[in-house]
């Protein structure tokens, strides 16, 4: 058994990885995290065992890249260190423009946000989520359900007319 062309990995898992990156980082940094994830996956791909769980593998990479992006963003936030964004702007999609959604997510404690992203968005079992967020399966389950409960109160914002 041999590995399929990497194209297929992108075609099958590209959408879910983008949703995970958005859930963990918000729409602004998600594109870069997505690119870093697939570039890193492409580098390692020839060594991947053909029977691997490709989605779990990608989400693990995305998790590490999201941490890098967050650290990079913290560095860039320092006044002397700011660089202009070199990427061309694009029209935000409906979900990207949903600022209520992103502020509700950003208000979650990091572990709750990650547990929601890796379990509810990526579909990983709690045992795997626990490994990623350095927790136990029971605690990961609790983080995810606490996160969902908080999101329910914060979103959607009541429209005041």
């Amino acid at each position: 058994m041999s590995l399929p062309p990497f194209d297929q990995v992108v075609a099958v898992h590209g959408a879910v990885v983008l949703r995970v990156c958005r859930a963990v980082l918000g729409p602004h940094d998600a594109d870069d995290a997505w690119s870093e994830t697939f570039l890193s996956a492409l580098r390692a791909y020839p060594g991947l065992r053909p029977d691997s769980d490709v989605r779990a593998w990608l989400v693990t990479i995305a998790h590490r890249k999201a941490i890098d992006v967050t650290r990079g963003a913290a560095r860039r936030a320092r006044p002397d260190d700011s660089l202009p964004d070199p990427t061309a702007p694009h029209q935000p999609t409906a979900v990207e423009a949903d600022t209520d959604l992103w502020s509700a997510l950003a208000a979650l404690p990091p572990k709750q946000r990650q547990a929601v992203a890796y379990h509810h968005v990526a579909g990983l079992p709690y045992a795997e989520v626990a490994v990623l967020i350095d927790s136990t399966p029971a605690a990961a389950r609790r983080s995810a359900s606490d996160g969902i409960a908080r999101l329910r109160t914060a979103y959607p914002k009541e429209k005041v007319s």
Partner: protein
Amino acid sequence: MTTALDALLAPDAPADLARLTDRLATQATDADLLDVAHRTIDSPYGPLLAAATPAGLVRLAFALEDHGVVLDRLAAQISPRVLASSRSLDPVARQLEEYFAGRRQAFDLSLDLRLARGFRRQVLDHLREVPYGHTATYTAIAAASGSPRAVRAVGTACATNPIPIVVPCHRIVRTDGTIGQYLGGTATKRALLAMEEAA
């Protein structure tokens, strides 16, 4: 009511992923991580799949060969780092377009002939010497390749030519003057020969 989770799981605009996927191919090329780039090129004989390594054009396939199967084989034979990338194959597309329009008689492309080995590879080198608008026989190519009795093996080398059109196996015909088999079908072979003769 839409929950946050519904919003997070909502399907994306396909344009978003297409943009990211395109950007990935460019980034992969810049990072020397794209081992096999490919794209589809329209032709009068149906869509052609073109694939290239950093060394050059490695595969051209008519639609008669299932393009998905061709890509799976390239992943197994060369590297699974395979991505669609039109940029790396723009010169190939342009030169093929000129050829089909009768405006180009010879291709100026680097070729990666790693998929043909031994005698087959030798045969391909001789095929490349048959000029535009001319034909040669399988027997003549066998003789030129140093094995005059290997006529059948020359036929096999043509039938497994990884880069048809550019390596012009369509210019090889049978001694009795009949056209012989072709990867893209005998109708395509006949049409290519007629086009070259008319140009």
